[in-house]
């Protein structure tokens, strides 16, 4: 009898807890608008399916809008300015400053328990401009050095280079043995390509992009060393003489056609490299003073215009929950896990890299005028590659320009 009574009590307790939870998560009649970028072929359908349980549980509806990359920032700008923006947004670091500065994004710290924070692997990455504004969501996709192992073998080598000297000697060896370009870079694209062509070398030289006060290249000598190294790649004929008219897609295409031996691309390019039949290997990055490369740190943000903050936060938690993220990484976009206990579903080739090389992965800073500075830097470095500016002039001109903006 005692056993029956205790079971009854436990059952009643469970029912009561469920009822409490249900009432706490009752957002009947609320529609939460979520804007995201296209990662797969049909992101909207994926999220509608994955969030159906959450919608049934909470009574809320989700309005998912997938915005093309080409017009991503424009859509946010016009949407937020006209009051027709999302409740929950997906944003990358380069676009955050103005929204945070204008109060369009709210801090989220208070809505997350210590347990949730501890389980979120990259929680600390979400602290920018002094507060926790971001819920890291797409963290990974570092720019790594891919190597065509067949061309490498033809050159009598068997391992990807790990230092600048090795990068140069390997590129030259490939060129000598195969007649093909050993290593190439895209200097004919747009400033987003700095993630592949300049920032990794800046970090590898031990430099920083900005200091705490927002000053550009606080370790100028390191920045100069990186720029001089890149310039030497052009003058020594290591990279193609046509690099100033090649963009990222041209470099990727050349690599997949087996026309170049090494190139820096994102880990998400691995599948296409394999599809193209390339026998590829990689090094996370080369090392000079330090190791380093760019890594994405894209996040979910809570917009201050959210009509129901609790519902929006609940949606953010649901999207970043282990089941949804595992499905996302498996069906839509291969990335490493963002929570403790989540399965690793990115390309198996990179699993150990995320543990062993993580210290060299750098996200871009959230600072004022960063897009303008990037545009000026890319333009000046292009001029350097065309012999119009010296490496020092390219950097100094950019620093002066950045200073004139503040």
């Amino acid at each position: 009898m005692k056993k029956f009574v205790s079971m009854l009590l436990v059952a009643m307790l469970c029912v009561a807890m469920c009822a409490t939870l249900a009432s706490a998560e009752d957002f009947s009649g609320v529609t939460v608008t979520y804007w995201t970028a296209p990662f797969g072929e049909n992101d909207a359908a994926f999220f509608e399916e994955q969030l159906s349980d959450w919608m049934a549980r909470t009574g809320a509806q989700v309005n998912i809008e997938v915005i093309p990359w080409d017009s991503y920032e424009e859509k946010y700008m016009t949407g937020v300015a006209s009051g027709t923006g999302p409740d929950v947004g997906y944003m990358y670091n380069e676009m955050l400053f103005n929204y945070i500065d204008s109060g369009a994004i709210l801090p989220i710290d208070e809505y997350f328990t210590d347990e949730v924070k501890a389980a979120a692997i990259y929680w600390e990455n979400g602290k920018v401009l002094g507060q926790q504004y971001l819920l890291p969501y797409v963290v990974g996709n570092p720019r790594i050095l891919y190597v065509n192992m067949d061309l490498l073998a033809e050159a009598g080598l068997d391992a990807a280079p790990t230092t600048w000297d090795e990068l140069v000697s390997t590129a030259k060896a490939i060129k000598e043995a195969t007649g093909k370009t050993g290593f190439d870079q895209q200097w004919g694209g747009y400033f987003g390509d700095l993630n592949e062509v300049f920032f990794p070398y800046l970090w590898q030289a031990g430099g920083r992009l900005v200091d705490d006060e927002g000053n550009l290249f606080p370790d100028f000598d390191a920045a100069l060393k990186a720029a001089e190294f890149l310039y030497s790649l052009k003058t020594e004929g290591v990279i193609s003489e046509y690099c100033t008219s090649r963009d990222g897609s041209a470099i990727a295409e050349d690599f997949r056609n087996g026309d170049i031996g090494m190139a820096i691309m994102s880990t998400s390019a691995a599948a296409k490299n394999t599809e193209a039949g390339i026998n590829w290997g990689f090094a996370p990055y080369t090392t000079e003073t330090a190791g380093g490369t760019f890594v994405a740190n894209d996040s979910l943000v809570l917009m201050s215009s959210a009509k129901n903050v609790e519902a929006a936060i609940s949606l953010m938690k649901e999207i970043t929950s282990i089941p949804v993220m595992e499905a996302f990484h498996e069906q839509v976009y291969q990335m490493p896990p963002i929570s403790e206990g989540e399965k690793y579903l990115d390309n198996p080739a990179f699993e150990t890299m995320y543990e062993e090389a993580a210290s060299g992965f750098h996200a871009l800073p959230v600072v004022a005028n960063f897009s303008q500075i990037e545009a000026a830097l890319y333009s000046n470095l292009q001029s350097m590659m065309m012999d119009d500016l010296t490496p020092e002039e390219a950097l100094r001109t950019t620093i002066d320009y950045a200073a004139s903006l503040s």
Partner: protein
Amino acid sequence: MSAKQKNNLWGWLFVLPSFAVLLVFIAFPIVRSFYLSLTDYNVLKPPSFVGFKNYVSAFKDPFVQASFRNTFQYVLTTVPIQTILSMIVAAIIAMRFQNRYGRFVKGCMFIPVISSSVLVGTLFTLLFDSTKGVVNSAISLVGIAPVNWLGQKSTALLTVCIATIWKNVGYFLVIFYAGIMDIPMSYYEAAEVDGASKLQQFFSITLPCLKPITYLVVTLGIIWSFQAFDMVYAMTQGGPGKSTYTMVYTIYNAAFREYRMGYACTVALVLFVFILVVNNIQKLFLGRE
């Protein structure tokens, strides 16, 4: 109310709808842009008045300086070539090929006009590709070394100009052709009787009679060229260096990539003033009649 006043009132009433449209869609945006050009405005926060600071910054900005220079080069390259080329082709078709072949050529030359600029830009990027482009393959047949068309300062803007001319010629060709068809045949018959050659007829009859059409074509060409954006966006993104930055590309960058709407309005107004000035200079030469 007198009859004259009534007449005036009716006049105003008839003009009012068009005037209202002009006011709302032309005058108000210009006035509003001028106001915003005097502010620090990023769309997300209310504008704050900064006086003429944006104008001072614009004239010091290396991107704006480069875009002014490039835009002028772009105008000076594309407008004369596309005007002369379309006039010559129109004259040849009108004089020699007023048949199905002429119609076919006109139709073909209009295809680029209705094609998207991004498509045309992509096509020319492929044609002028340094390593695999058709143009470099063709010139290599006559022993010329491959050119890095879109990757060096001296040729990047020129390549964009070539793509623009290719896209625009068909449009102006149709206008010139219509203009030539309007020239009375009796002029040519009289010239024939006087023993004028075809070339003399072209320079002494066709060209003078086409003056109003030429004025229209040059005006449109100048305005379009000052607004160059889409081809640059598709082909070079302003590079390499700043060699293909145009004014509208700079405006776009300032407004939508850098969130500097006030600054973008400043550059836009400067562009507006430039177009006005150039248009008035052009009137002195072509539009006196």
